[in-house]
């Protein structure tokens, strides 16, 4: 059980540092186990140092900075346990324009090796997709799929956020 945990923990930790450095354009992050002898007795601490700042605990980061760290953690797990299919539902919700673009580009890269579906309201994400579906309510309370449209055409786009 302990071996099983560590066989995943070390690669996830390594990937996590790489992912965060990439998504934050040069920040650094690290994971620390509260109890390395017996990890199941303690928690997992994450420290992040956004570019140009001091190292901070997860609690002192801003809303957007926290969600970038959480996303890096998830992307690291996915990298260590790869799949042929990924779905991301509004993972870019807390991010400003620049961060949303970084995340969209990284997910675009994932889509080279696997099938990726994202649900998003953000232009930065929608612009990266190969195919775009709009969902809308036509009859009261009934969802319809507007079908494959090019990103430029879709009416919903004006709903989407830019940047």
């Amino acid at each position, binding site marked *: 059980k302990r071996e099983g945990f560590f066989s995943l923990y070390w690669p996830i930790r390594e990937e996590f540092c790489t992912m965060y450095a990439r998504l934050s354009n040069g920040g650094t992050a690290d994971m620390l186990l509260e109890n390395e002898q017996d990890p199941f007795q303690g928690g997992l601490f994450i420290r992040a140092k956004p570019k140009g700042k001091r190292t901070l605990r997860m609690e002192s980061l801003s809303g957007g900075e926290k969600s970038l760290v959480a996303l890096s953690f*998830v992307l690291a797990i996915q990298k260590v346990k790869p799949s042929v299919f990924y779905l991301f539902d509004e993972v870019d919700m807390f991010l400003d324009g620049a961060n949303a673009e970084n995340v969209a580009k990284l997910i675009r890269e994932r889509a080279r090796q696997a*099938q990726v579906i994202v649900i998003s309201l953000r232009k930065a994400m929608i612009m*990266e997709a*190969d195919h775009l*579906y709009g969902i*809308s*309510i036509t009859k009261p*309370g*009934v969802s319809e799929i507007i079908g494959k449209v090019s*990103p430029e055409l879709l009416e919903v786009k004006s709903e989407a956020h830019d940047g």
Partner: protein
Amino acid sequence: MYIKSLELNNFKSFGGMKVIPFLPGFTAITGPNGSGKSNISDAILFALGPKSSKVIRAGKLTDLIFNGGGEGQAAKKCRVSLIFDNTNREVPIESDEIRLTRVIKISQTSDNYYSYFYVNGKISSLGEFEDILSSTGLFGHGFNLVQQGDINSIALMTSTERRKIIDLVS
């Protein structure tokens, strides 16, 4: 191996029969609040047969059946099929595609419901679904389906809860 399409029949807000083709590469789904985007991710999770209905944001499984919306009739059952490619025979079934179908039907008599599983049209079980899925690599335990709100709850969880995520994927 990839998902070819998802068929929704009276599943949540998708009244009637709706087919969503899934293409290889990068697909984005967008639309206003409440239009039904996250219901698509719920449909995929439903078809994979997870044990807990919390995953599909419903109180009980019958909440997944189309309630009629504003003016329509509430349906009595819902059906979701997940169709994926099997030309390379990753799954040891003699067919170029595998269709996993799950049905929930309200019972006429009591407040009960029936839950059925089908593989390529033949009656099956949750156990067989799990066997098939583990040989596809479509849904390992690697957090490959990130639901709405997951990122925010990871950002806010305690250090012990965060460590438990690694236990789960081991």
